[in-house]
């Protein structure tokens, strides 16, 4: 069994330290990513989960420096293979994007160019990053389509995106992303727009390609099922902060943060019959970013919140097993009930 402590021994391919990204309006600043820390171990998959507005997509866009006005990466470090990407020039970043770090987006139709053939779009990265001729690049594109399991690739390579189904388009996106053999692949909700039977095909494909090519993956998703199935480690985000970071088995078996527990409990499952029991809910809804709670961001919705939670923001602390947790309950300063039953196991 892999433990999170391994992360310290394994060399991370990417490490994010205190990343801050904000969006500025006339009146106020929205802290979309508010001091995020995590590491992606080499050859492994890190999942980032959270609900809408948690900052998971903005985190990934910040890594590749794709944030546009009125947004801005305000601070922190993004260390990729020992170098801080935030210090790179735009020209250097262009050499990294699509070459060393690639990204797949949720909606393949809007991320593919409708007026170029699939082959032309895959060829582009071979021509730019590997200086291949047009002809060579096209041959390699056919190979890439074969790799991602598209039947009769010689014919498909000449087709336009609208001629392909949703699942096929997502395969093309993956082919494009993997063209230059990247070391890190960022997948932002890669299967959310797809039907489950097609999702199963795509997830299987990604797993298979990771085994063969040895790349590291950041999987951004809201689907805890996808996380359980594909990830080695998970970072749970809430309102721009990581609230829990753990090895995937630990997270699902012994979730620690009340938010993680709430998410798992509120999920209706197809494999478990609750009979007539109600789903457990997280009360209320995510506050507006303009109205950020002063202490722990989750305190207004947390069933355990006490004085200290509403007043002061807890730090993301590493526990004995190497997992990380941002919650006062697990600290010496906890001032609520001495024994709290967060996930059915008592803490003291």
């Amino acid at each position, binding site marked *: 069994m892999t433990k999170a402590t391994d992360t310290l021994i394994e060399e991370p391919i990417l490490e994010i330290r205190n990343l801050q990204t904000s969006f500025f309006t006339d009146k106020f600043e929205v802290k979309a990513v508010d001091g995020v820390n995590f590491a992606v171990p080499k050859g492994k998959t890190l999942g980032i989960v959270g*609900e*809408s507005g948690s900052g998971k997509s903005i985190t990934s866009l910040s890594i590749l420096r794709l944030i546009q006005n009125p947004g801005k990466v305000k601070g922190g470090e993004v260390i990729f293979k020992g170098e801080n990407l935030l210090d790179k020039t735009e020209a250097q970043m262009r050499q990294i994007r699509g070459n060393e770090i690639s990204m797949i987006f949720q909606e393949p139709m809007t991320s593919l160019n409708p007026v170029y053939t699939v082959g032309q779009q895959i060829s582009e990265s071979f021509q730019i990053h590997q200086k291949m001729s047009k002809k060579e690049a096209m041959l390699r594109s056919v190979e890439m389509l074969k790799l991602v399991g598209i039947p009769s690739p010689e014919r498909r390579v000449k087709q336009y995106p609208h001629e392909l*189904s949703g*699942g*096929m388009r997502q395969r093309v996106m993956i082919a494009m992303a993997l063209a230059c053999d990247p070391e890190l692949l960022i997948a932002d909700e890669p299967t959310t727009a797809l*039907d*489950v*039977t*097609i*999702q*199963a*095909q795509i*997830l*299987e494909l990604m797993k298979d390609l990771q085994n063969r090519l040895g790349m590291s993956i950041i999987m951004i998703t*809201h*689907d*805890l*099922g*996808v*996380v*359980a*199935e*594909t990830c080695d480690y998970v970072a749970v985000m809430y309102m721009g902060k990581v609230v829990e970071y753990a090895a*995937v*088995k630990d997270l*699902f*078996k012994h979730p620690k943060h009340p938010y993680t527990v*709430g*998410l*798992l409990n*509120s*999920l*209706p*499952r*197809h*494999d*478990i*019959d*609750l009979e007539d029991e*109600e*789903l*457990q*809910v*997280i009360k209320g*809804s*995510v506050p507006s970013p303009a109205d950020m709670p002063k202490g722990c961001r989750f305190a207004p919705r947390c069933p355990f919140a006490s004085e200290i939670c509403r007043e002061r923001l807890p730090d993301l602390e590493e526990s004995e097993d190497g997992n990380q947790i941002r919650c006062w309950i697990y600290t010496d300063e906890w001032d609520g009930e001495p024994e709290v039953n967060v996930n059915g196991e008592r803490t003291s």
Partner: protein
Amino acid sequence: MAKELLKVTDLKQYFPIKGGMLGRTINNVKAVDGISFTVYEGETVSIVGESGCGKSTTGRAILRLDEPTSGQVEFNGEDLLSLSKRQMRAKRKDLQIIFQDPYASINPRQTVRQVLEEALQIQNVVPKSERDAKIAELMEVVGLGAHQADRFPHEFSGGQRQRIGIARALSVDPKLIIADEAVSALDVSIQAQVINLMKKLQREFGLTYLFISHDLGVVRHISDRVIVMYLGKIVEMGDKKSIFDNPQHPYTKALLSAIPVPDPEPEKKQERIILQGDVPSPIDPPSGCRFHTRCPFATEKCKVDVPELRAEDYMKEGHVGACHYMKEIEEGTHKPNY
């Protein structure tokens, strides 16, 4: 046995494709192709399936939001398809629908009060003098404050907006509510709140739900019975327990096995059946069993003979499937060819 509230018989919904120089109908999209089912009073029946299987079209055809091509829809013993447009409009007091996207289905220029008032006025459920009280009551029932009635939809969050959609549907005291992907656009923590609300309202008002969804987790939680559709046809139908614990049709099995389980070490690890290829086009659906192009168990017979919904003797009452080989697959004598 509970009373039959809705009875759909051989419902077909074809959408014509116009083309050629004269703009004639050159072909049809067979979105729903001859389905029959019954919904009893007070129960929740779910229709599940992937994009393009015809589940939403079925919901719309029942309400005649699109006029069905043929078939019968009986509601409370009355044939809805023989009603005039005006009679149908009055009938919609009893059949309401909640849509997936509350942003798109509520007029952004009306306050919540105006939205609800319009519904009350059209169906004339309560006298004018009592409307304000009714609106306040509706707001409370769906978990919003009566003081929020004068706000506009954009002032509410996604979950709250879906509550407004529910309040609007409830305002005319319907018997049947068709919920078309009503909780699909919501985050899980909010989704759970809305599901619990819908179950509570069902108990309080004796509502009947036809719940259309692609999310089998939600379906298992909310339904009494489940209908599985594929390419415009019902492939399997039965009580919730039978469908989830003892699926008979290879498509239902594949669909259930494809859903990722939020547990990295599940107790009973199920074998995943990965289907090859995509759903074929409903313009020119495959001959015989429509699933044969992707089915691991398909034979020559499946390419020719259309399987009818039927029960094997070991299946629970009311559980039917449309596959030639249910028994053979169950007994293990018919093996998949992969």
